[in-house]
C-alpha cells in the first residue's frame, strides 16, 4: 500500500516536482495506471466549483473617524449591513437588497464593487455615547481605505444537492432558476466529478484549517458549513445519496478578483453570489485515490418537485450527474430537458488555476487541525408553544 505524508507532498511542491492534476485529469491517469500506480504518481488533485451561494457575505472593519462613532445602522451603497457588533465592525450579507434598486443591486454587488476597488458610499448612524460622541457619518470607502475585509461564507460546496423540476401549470421563479411548468425542464447546480466534497466524501483531507482557493485569493475552511448533515445513507463508494456535507469558508477579500467571485440575480427571488472555490486533495493513500476516482456516472441525485410547498417535496426521479449532463433525462416516463446553474467552465478554470499555483510552489497543502464528524443530523423548525 502506497502512503505519503503532508510533509512529503509539501517538500515536493517546494522543490517543484509535485505531480498536480485536476479531478477530471486524474480519471485518465487512473485508467492508465490503476489505483496503485496513480497513487504513487499523483501527489495532489485539485477540485473546484463556481455556483451561486446565497449564504455568503463579508466582515468589514470600517475604521474610526474623528470624532468616533459607534455605528448602529450601516448602509453601503444603500444596502443594509449588520452592525450589531463593535463600533465599526459590520457584516454585509450577499442577499441583502438595496433600498433603491431592490434585488438588482444587493450585498453581493457591494462586495464585488469593493473587490473591484470602487468607491462605496457609507452612511451610518448611532445614538452617540460618551466614548463615541458622533451620531452620524456620510463618506466613501474603498477596500484600501478600510481595515480588515474578509469573505465569510457560512455555507458553500454543498455535497450532492438536489435537481429541481416543476410539475405545476405555473412558471416558478426560484433559487434553482426559472422552472417552466408541466415538467418541461430540470435544473441542477454542481460541478459533479470536479466538486470538492464529492471527491472527499468522508472529509478525510477537507476539514477545519484546510487551505483553499476562494474568489481568486487564499482562504481556509473555517468550520463545518451550516446545514451540515453528514449522517446520511451512502453508497459503496461512500457517496451520500442526498444533500449532505457543506463547508464554512473564509478568505481575504482584498486578494480576490471579480473574475472568480460575482454577484448573481435570480428573478423574483433575489440577489445571490457566485463564489469560486478550489480545494486541493493530497493523495495520501490508495483510499483517497479511490475517492477522487469518482465520475459523474457514479453520483446520483434526486429530482425534486419544487411546486409542492407543504410537506417533503416529492422525489420524482433518481438520476446520475452523467444523465443530467447529457441534456435530457427521463422523469416518470417523459423526456425532460436539463439545464445547469453552476458554471462548469469556470470551475475547470479554477481547478486549473489552483493546479498552477501548486506547481509553481506558491500554494502548500495544509493538514486540517480538526476533522468533521460523519454522523451529523439536521433539525427542521417546529412551531411550538412557549414552555412553562
Amino acid at each position, binding site marked *: 500500500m502506497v502512503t505519503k505524508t503532508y510533509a512529503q507532498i509539501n517538500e515536493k511542491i517546494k522543490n517543484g516536482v509535485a505531480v498536480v492534476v485536476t479531478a477530471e485529469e486524474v480519471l485518465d491517469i487512473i485508467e492508465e495506471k490503476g489505483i496503485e500506480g496513480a497513487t504513487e504518481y499523483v501527489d495532489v488533485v485539485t477540485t473546484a466549483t463556481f455556483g451561486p451561494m446565497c449564504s455568503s457575505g463579508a466582515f468589514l472593519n470600517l475604521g474610526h473617524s474623528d470624532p468616533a462613532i459607534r455605528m448602529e445602522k450601516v448602509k453601503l451603497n444603500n444596502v443594509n449591513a449588520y452592525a450589531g457588533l463593535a463600533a465599526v465592525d459590520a457584516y454585509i450579507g450577499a442577499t441583502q437588497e438595496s433600498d433603491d434598486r431592490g434585488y438588482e443591486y444587493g450585498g453581493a454587488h457591494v462586495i464585488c464593487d469593493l473587490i473591484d476597488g470602487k468607491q462605496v458610499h457609507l452612511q451610518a448612524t448611532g445614538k452617540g455615547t460618551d466614548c463615541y460622541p458622533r451620531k452620524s457619518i456620510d463618506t466613501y470607502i474603498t477596500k484600501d481605505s478600510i481595515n480588515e475585509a474578509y469573505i465569510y461564507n457560512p455555507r458553500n460546496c454543498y455535497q450532492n444537492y438536489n435537481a429541481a423540476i416543476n410539475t405545476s401549470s405555473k412558471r416558478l421563479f426560484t433559487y434553482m432558476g426559472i422552472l417552466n411548468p408541466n415538467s418541461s425542464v430540470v435544473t441542477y447546480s454542481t460541478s459533479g466529478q470536479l466538486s470538492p466534497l464529492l471527491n472527499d466524501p468522508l472529509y478525510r483531507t477537507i476539514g477545519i484549517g484546510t487551505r483553499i482557493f476562494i474568489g481568486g485569493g487564499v482562504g481556509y475552511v473555517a468550520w463545518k458549513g451550516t446545514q451540515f448533515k453528514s449522517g446520511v445513507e451512502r453508497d459503496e463508494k461512500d457517496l451520500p445519496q442526498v444533500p449532505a456535507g457543506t463547508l464554512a469558508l473564509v478568505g481575504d477579500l482584498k486578494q480576490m478578483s471579480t473574475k472568480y467571485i*460575482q454577484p448573481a440575480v435570480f428573478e423574483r427571488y433575489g440577489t445571490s453570489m457566485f463564489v469560486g472555490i478550489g480545494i486541493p486533495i493530497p493523495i495520501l493513500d490508495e483510499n483517497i485515490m479511490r475517492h477522487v476516482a469518482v465520475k459523474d456516472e457514479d453520483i446520483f441525485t434526486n429530482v425534486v418537485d419544487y411546486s409542492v410547498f407543504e410537506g417533503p417535496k416529492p422525489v420524482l426521479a433518481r438520476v446520475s450527474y452523467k444523465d443530467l449532463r447529457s441534456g435530457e433525462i427521463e422523469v416518470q416516463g417523459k423526456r425532460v430537458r436539463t439545464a445547469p446553474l453552476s458554471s462548469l467552465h469556470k470551475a475547470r478554470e479554477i481547478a486549473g488555476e489552483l493546479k498552477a499555483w501548486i506547481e509553481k510552489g506558491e500554494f502548500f497543502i495544509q493538514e486540517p487541525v480538526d476533522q468533521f464528524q460523519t454522523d451529523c443530523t439536521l433539525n427542521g423548525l417546529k412551531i411550538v408553544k412557549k414552555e412553562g
Partner: protein
Amino acid sequence: MKQKLLLTFPAEATGHTITYELITKYQLEVNILRASIDFNAQGFLLIEVIGDISSRKEALDFLLENNVEVREINAAILINEEKCINCGACTAACTVGALYMDNNWCLSFDNEKCLDCKTCVVACPKRAIEAVL
C-alpha cells in the same frame, strides 16, 4: 430568402396600408411577429419577409419613400460575452433550445430557433442578455 425586418413608422405613415402593399404589390410573404403604436401615433412592426431579391429591394425603396425606417434584425437578443460566466441558467428558461451549452460547457445561441420570448433576459443571473427590441 427569409429576412427579419424592424419597421419604424413616423406618425404620418401610420395611417397607410403599408403591410397590405408589401404583400399585394411586391409579392412578399409577410409574417407579423410583433406590432405596436404609441400615443404619438408612431409605431413599429417586426416582420419576417420571404421574397426574391428584386422584389425585396423594390419594397425597401417603397418603405423609404414613405419615411419608414428599416432595420434588419439578425438576432432578438444580444449576449454580453464579457459578463456571461457560462452558468447555463438561461438555457433552463429557453424552451425552444435556442440557447444551449456546447461541448466545452460554454453558452451557444441558435438565432434561427429563437422566438423572441425574452424569458432568458430575466433568467440570466448576470444580466448579460439584452433584448434587441
